[in-house]
């Protein structure tokens, strides 16, 4: 953990968690593009969700007003984040909960591991949570001899398939029903060998498999969709009921949330509960939303721990333009409309946060040098901005981060040398005319599309080099 400059905003530490990929986006994307099954699965799923989400959003006459309110509430949260967190801490504590602060992934993992160990259980059940994926909690628990059981169906598919999540909402979006059936037959203990690939049958198999885990595991870990500063109320939005199981049945509940998930008032939930389900699963309302404030005697867990996680968020907050990435409510609408995500899938982004929001959030959490290719993983088409329920201007952030990345590179590149030379020539008319004449000579060198020699060849790998005209406009003008 970096303690060099106490109190200075810090990025997420290396060597822990899942914010950094093993290879740059273009290399990973090229492999994904070569997998036709993956592209079919993604195309089918994103087409389905876009149609459903669009239909329920059109039902609301005030969708744009809700987006504006959601965006403004999040901007207000960021401007007052320290005081809201202190207010949240006081409210949760007053309601019988315990609040912990984690500067980074290492500290959060240690806090949760110690809390689980203190219950005496060697098993913990989990509700799907991006924050715990981000910090690599399951690996940290395993290192301490504690088994983490993922209870969300898609997370279970990923865990049983020894796979990595590829979507914020549906981590197994890259798998189709036939592949899921194979994973269950191979890795789910006690599964019926006659299992079909009907989604209802697959869901029923998960229900049977996890029932005993729910009834016997004394400790659960969840994330949080929202935490209300004024009341200390935590909200978890879900569909299957695995969330209700984990939030209700165990004796001890541990919730890990990024600090930006706080909202100021109870009333603010009237905005986000309208935005999130329609943008996310394309439902008017998700099947189950659980809200709790501290502990309720006789109902639910007897001990509640809330872990407030920084892990790079302070560094994102320090960037006045970049901080709007912290508005994100993890709906994944930007993934579902992104032409790049639809073709490459989530694994290519390396981080647990894929798609357009991942391309702007991950490099800021880690520092842009550790995810340098992600700000370029976009065509800047702007569909993500239109789809975002809290109006994060992702294209603006992508350009901002590209500029930050270029500024961070001190060594001149072939591109920067070429651009500087072009700028000089365009500033000096005589030079410009001479360069144009020289460019015409390259017609003798080769045919169109042949590409440039090194070190400029990188530019023409994916592009045709335009053929210089036989006569420049200036020549034509001078001769008429």
């Amino acid at each position, binding site marked *: 953990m970096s303690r060099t400059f106490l109190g200075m905003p810090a990025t997420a530490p290396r060597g822990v968690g899942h914010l950094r990929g093993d290879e740059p986006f273009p290399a990973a994307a090229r492999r994904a593009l070569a997998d036709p099954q993956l592209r079919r699965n993604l195309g089918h799923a994103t087409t389905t969700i876009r149609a459903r989400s669009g239909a329920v959003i059109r039902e609301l006459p005030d969708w744009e007003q809700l987006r504006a309110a959601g965006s403004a509430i999040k901007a207000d949260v960021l401007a007052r984040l320290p005081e809201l967190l202190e207010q949240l801490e006081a409210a949760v504590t007053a309601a019988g909960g315990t609040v912990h602060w984690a500067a980074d992934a290492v500290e959060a993992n240690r806090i949760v591991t110690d809390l689980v160990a203190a219950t005496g259980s060697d098993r913990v059940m989990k509700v799907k949570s991006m924050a715990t994926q981000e910090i690599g909690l399951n690996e940290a628990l395993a290192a301490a001899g504690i088994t983490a059981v993922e209870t969300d169906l898609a997370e279970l598919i990923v865990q049983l398939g020894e796979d990595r999540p590829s979507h914020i909402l549906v981590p197994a979006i890259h798998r189709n029903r036939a592949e899921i059936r194979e994973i269950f037959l191979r890795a789910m203990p006690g599964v019926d060998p006659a299992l079909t690939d009907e989604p209802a049958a697959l869901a029923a198999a998960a229900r049977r498999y996890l029932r005993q885990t729910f009834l016997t595991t004394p400790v659960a870990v969840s994330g949080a969709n929202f935490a209300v500063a004024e009341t200390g109320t935590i909200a978890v939005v879900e569909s*299957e009921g695995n969330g209700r199981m984990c939030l209700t049945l165990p004796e001890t509940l541990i919730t890990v949330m990024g600090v930006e998930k706080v909202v100021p008032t109870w009333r603010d939930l009237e905005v986000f509960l309208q935005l999130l389900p329609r943008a996310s699963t394309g439902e008017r309302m998700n099947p*189950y939303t659980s809200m709790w404030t501290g502990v309720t005697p006789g109902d639910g867990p007897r001990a509640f721990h809330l872990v407030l996680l920084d892990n790079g968020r302070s560094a994102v907050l320090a960037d006045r333009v970049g901080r709007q990435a912290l508005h994100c409510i993890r709906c994944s609408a930007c993934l579902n409309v992104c032409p790049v995500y639809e073709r490459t899938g989530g694994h290519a982004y390396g981080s647990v946060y894929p798609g357009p929001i991942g391309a702007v959030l991950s490099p800021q959490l880690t520092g842009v040098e550790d995810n340098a290719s992600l700000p370029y993983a976009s065509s800047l088409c702007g569909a993500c901005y239109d789809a975002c329920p809290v109006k994060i201007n992702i294209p603006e952030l992508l350009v901002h981060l590209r500029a930050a990345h270029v500024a961070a590179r001190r060594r001149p590149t072939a591109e920067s040398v070429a651009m500087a030379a072009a700028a000089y020539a365009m500033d000096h008319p005589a030079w410009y005319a001479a360069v144009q004449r020289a460019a015409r000579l390259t017609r003798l060198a080769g045919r169109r599309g042949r590409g440039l020699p090194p070190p400029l060849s990188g530019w023409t790998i994916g592009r045709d080099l335009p053929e210089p005209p036989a006569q420049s406009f200036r020549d034509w003008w001078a001769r008429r």
Partner: protein
Amino acid sequence: MSSRDLVLGRLRAALGPDPAAPADVPRDYRPAGGPADVDLLARRLTDYRATVHRCADGEVARVVDEVLGGRRVVVPPGLPRRWLPGTVEAVTDDRLGSARLAAVDGVVTAAAVAVAETGTIVLDGAPDQGRRIITLLPDVHVCVLRADQVVAGLPDAVARLDPRRPLTWISGPSATSDIELDRVEGVHGPRHLHVVILPPGPPS
């Protein structure tokens, strides 16, 4: 330095000595107070595969008999006994263990609020709704609602509810979209949700 001081110090440093003024939140969206349309609630519930019954208070026992007759149900301590037919074996929840609750077939509760626009019922743990666990483990949930508990939209429901109580918002039976992003009903929560809507007003 504690981690609390470290995190708060980092966040204050990130905002700088002159943080942006808190933004005014425009709340131009539809406010609470719209007409509560019970027919819309019924349609939206049906749309998400809940079964809707509309009847008088005196007919609730007949509906419960249709759904759960001959089976074992758990009920919260404050549930009106007149809603239970003689054909069900009713167990009153007295901090029953989870294994016991998992073995019953159904649960009958009242509700706190219902949202017409989204087809949502909300339970708040009052004596006629009980602990959260009793509506979670049984496979059939019959929820009895008075029409005056129906509100138009989310802002109305948030205004009516008390955040200090444990709240469960339920929109249809347990479902998942995790397989090919297609919605399938029936995972871990009750796979069958029946909502009984009574006429407005307190029961006689």
